[in-house]
């Protein structure tokens, strides 16, 4: 029997039953690898269900830093008889299957290595309470894995101690469970696994966290004080992270009161309305949602655009359309966010690619919203938002002050003859605003979604309104200089071919480029980080003869944006589209590009695999 032999480069996939407490254990497993110094990317593939359906947890371990999803599994920890067949199929030849051999069984494949651990039996012997037993089974296999992979068991003991800090009586039984697994493996499974984790230094300066946690923290750092939200997967954990971090970091010491207000609204329409009301009143406020929420929020997005109220909205994209695949990932709200709402509207999008950027863009978004006086939509997705990513540590500059944009306070108003809320005083399309209550005689105005003149007065004069609409376009132009520019994978361009990508696709892109490089294909790559596109984006496109646009949606939505906004020749832009709800893989990208370049006639390499 061949055995896959590998150190610090492999994929392990846990197959569990939803609601059995496995995600925590699996996450701890991944964290242990990270603590060993090896970058990991754990991905929780869960059903839209609470208990009983199959759920998977896929962990890619890569010292090289290739952290995108990849097809094929090296080690399968198959804890769910429901999905045995499926799980078995995915294992690479020479790979390993670990299962609960309390109930022994035969597996059809002969090209893989079966590792048997009688998990239930081990637990029955050691834990009397049948309810807790289920929970510990998960820790037992973590213990066994730590032996099989040649890891330092202490790392997990430390992790358990950290996790149950404050609830110390839970530590001992968990460590016991860990040891049961470890000991069983060391006694029975010596030499049965040739995949190893060796200590490394690659995670130095790195953290393991999710995009949503990072965004929630970014909102705290960015000075958000009001969060109004409505639960929806996969955005819920963002509001929860903001709540948790606020509870830790934002309590007024003297009074024990909150320097923030969080409301679980009655729906998405109310959530965004609250965020708009608060921003209008000078606080920094946001909401977080996913696709269905964006649809419901579109009327209010148009109001905020037209009345020029700052606003931050997180759209953690999931599989659409409609309720779609609520627990799967996609990048399919690009168009509906960019042009949200009826009438001529354009919104500012920020598109982070990793938790560090989630943190930074979240904080930055509030400055941008205040400066541009418009909604800023942060487009993340389920993969980035809910999964833990290995990424560089968060950074902050303590000298940074919040830029609240063009706000006139009482003093400023004293000096102004003629305040006009929508006057383009500076020629950049961005007017000045005042907060309610600022001054007893000056600066009050009427905010409205109806057509208005420079002084915020209602008008039905179409020419005046058209002037205002044109100023909004100018403002949008100004915005393109303020938003984060693109990131290039190369220092200087060296190919007539380019590839454009964005968001969570980053995880697979470098690997794809390297693969192509091995085939002798060199491409320049640009990661778009914001809409409206700035000059660098257009220059990159200008500089290349043919560009791929890699997107995790069906309709090539970013390509549409690029074409529509830039007047780009469509033939120049070739779509690479993945929309099966799984994070896109390097193989998928490189195969599609390579076959296009080396002669496939299809212009659009779409498909859900």
């Amino acid at each position: 029997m061949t055995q896959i032999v590998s150190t610090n480069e492999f994929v392990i996939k846990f197959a569990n039953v939803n609601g059995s407490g496995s995600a925590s254990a699996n996450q701890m497993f991944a964290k242990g690898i990270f603590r060993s110094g090896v970058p990991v990317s754990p991905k929780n593939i869960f059903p839209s269900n609470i208990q009983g359906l199959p759920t998977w947890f896929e962990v890619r371990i890569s010292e090289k830093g290739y952290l995108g999803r990849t097809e094929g599994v090296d080690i399968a920890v198959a804890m769910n008889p429901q999905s045995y067949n499926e799980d078995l199929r995915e294992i690479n030849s020479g790979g390993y299957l670990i299962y609960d051999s309390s109930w022994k069984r035969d597996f059809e494949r002969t090209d893989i290595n079966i590792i048997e651990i009688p998990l239930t039996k081990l637990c029955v012997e050691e834990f009397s309470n049948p309810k807790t037993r289920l929970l510990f089974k998960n820790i037992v296999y973590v213990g066994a894995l730590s032996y099989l992979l040649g890891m330092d068991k202490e790392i997990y003991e430390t992790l358990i101690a950290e996790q149950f800090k404050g609830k110390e009586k839970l530590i001992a039984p968990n460590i016991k469970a860990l040891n049961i697994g470890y000991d069983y493996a060391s006694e029975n499974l010596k030499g049965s696994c040739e995949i190893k984790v060796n200590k490394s230094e690659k995670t130095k300066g790195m953290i393991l966290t999710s995009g949503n946690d990072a965004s929630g923290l970014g909102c705290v750092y960015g000075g958000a004080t009001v969060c109004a939200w409505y639960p929806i997967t996969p955005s819920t954990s963002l509001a929860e992270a903001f709540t948790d971090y606020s509870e830790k970091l934002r309590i007024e010491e003297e009074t024990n009161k909150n320097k923030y207000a969080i409301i679980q609204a009655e729906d998405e329409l109310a959530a965004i309305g609250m965020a708009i009301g608060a921003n209008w009143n000078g606080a920094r406020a946001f909401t977080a949602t996913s696709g269905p929420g964006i649809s419901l929020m579109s009327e209010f997005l148009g109001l905020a655009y037209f009345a020029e109220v700052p606003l931050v909205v997180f759209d953690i994209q999931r599989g659409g359309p409609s309720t779609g695949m609520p627990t799967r990932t996609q990048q399919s709200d690009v168009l509906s966010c960019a042009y949200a709402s009826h009438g001529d509207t354009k919104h500012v999008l920020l598109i982070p690619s990793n938790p560090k950027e989630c943190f930074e863009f979240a904080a930055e978004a509030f400055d941008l919203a205040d400066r541009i006086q418009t909604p800023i939509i942060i487009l993340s997705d389920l993969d980035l938002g809910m999964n833990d990513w290995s990424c560089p540590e968060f950074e902050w500059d303590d000298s940074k002050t919040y830029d609240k944009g063009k706000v006139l306070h009482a003093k400023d108003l004293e000096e102004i003859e003629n305040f006009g809320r929508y006057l383009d005083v500076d020629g950049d399309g961005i007017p000045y605003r005042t907060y309610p209550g600022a001054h007893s005689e000056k600066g009050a105005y009427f905010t409205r979604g109806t057509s208005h003149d420079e002084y915020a007065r209602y008008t039905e004069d179409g020419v005046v309104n058209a002037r205002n609409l044109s100023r909004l376009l100018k403002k949008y132009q100004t915005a393109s200089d303020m938003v984060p520019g693109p990131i290039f994978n190369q220092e200087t361009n060296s190919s007539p071919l380019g590839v454009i990508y964005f968001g969570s696709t980053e995880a697979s892109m470098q690997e794809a480029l390297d693969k192509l490089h091995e085939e002798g294909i060199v491409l320049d790559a640009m990661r778009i980080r914001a809409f409206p596109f700035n000059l660098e984006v257009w220059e990159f496109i200008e500089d290349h003869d043919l560009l791929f646009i890699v997107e995790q949606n069906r309709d090539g939505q970013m390509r549409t944006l690029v074409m529509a906004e830039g007047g780009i020749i469509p033939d120049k832009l070739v779509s690479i589209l993945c929309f099966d709800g799984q994070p896109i893989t390097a193989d998928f990208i490189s195969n599609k590009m390579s076959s296009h370049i080396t002669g496939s006639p299809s212009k659009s390499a779409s498909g859900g695999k």
Partner: protein
Amino acid sequence: MTYIVKPKNHHPDLERNELGLTRRDYEGSISSLCAGCGHDSISAAILEACFQLNISAHRVAKLSGIGCSSKAPAYFLNQAHGFNSVHGRMPSIATGANLANHELMYLGISGDGDTASIGIGQFVHAARRQLNVVYIVENNGTYGLTKGQFSATNDLESKSKYGEDNLFPPIDLAAMAIQLGASFVARSFSGDKNQLIPLLKASMKHKGFSFLDVISPCVAFNNHSTSTKSYDYIREHNESVSETDFVPLGKEITASYDEGESVQVPLHDGSLISLEKLSKDFDPSNKSSSLAKINKAEEEGKVLTGLLYINTEAKDLKEILNVVDKPLNQLNEKDLCPGTKKLKEINKDLS
């Protein structure tokens, strides 16, 4: 619309309140509502209440949805910021605004279409959350701005300007507010300043969700089948042309009657509305008895007015959420940003 000449509210212009302000200082832009619209009377009453309470206009925020009623905030308190938002969503705007700065007074102006139909969800939840707002529904039983469709508060038996029957029973917003736990619930009539102004003043002083259902006749579209002769001609004329675009110039309808009394008030079209004022000895602190009284009056075809329910103990939203006293919109990076040191700790926790 009261074009050019703005009706003076029959008071000597020069009287000054404790802030040294005259009523003129509380005025807004010229109303563009129909002459005689009840909404203008309510605006006048709000102006008067603010004047009497010595409220600084700029410490008020006026919020509304969409409709004739929702335009009204433009016609009083020019020194106050206003936000004419989208249809039915004023409560959420008010919630956010209040959380950002609880020190202003929030006046939410809505219509029966704006609140009882598209906005009923936000109304329910703002009441439940005890949002500190004075929430006024200018209730005319119709969609004024879109030309006279029935609203959900319209009486079952009434007919539209176009002769159609209203087929569905009215939603009693006051009863709903009480059932939902709003801590101040009152009903009044736009033309009864003697009752309305004191109720407005009380609601402005009240902390928590203060709801006022103010019956406010629509000159243009509230046209019951019982109309008196005088209007018949015009109505018939109007019904038989393709555009029903004639609005007779109306006069403000007033009514003045005592507590415990009933009165029948003729509306613009000559139809009658029966108002019954709660008697002095009514105890408005019991939910069930308030509801019973409202529902009984309704069965009798009467509209009960007065302070229907009050609970002075209730916490408001800001207190419930335990928010700091300094308005959130005044906190800066020093108050809010945990800084590099904390971030390093967080990095450590995550590694």
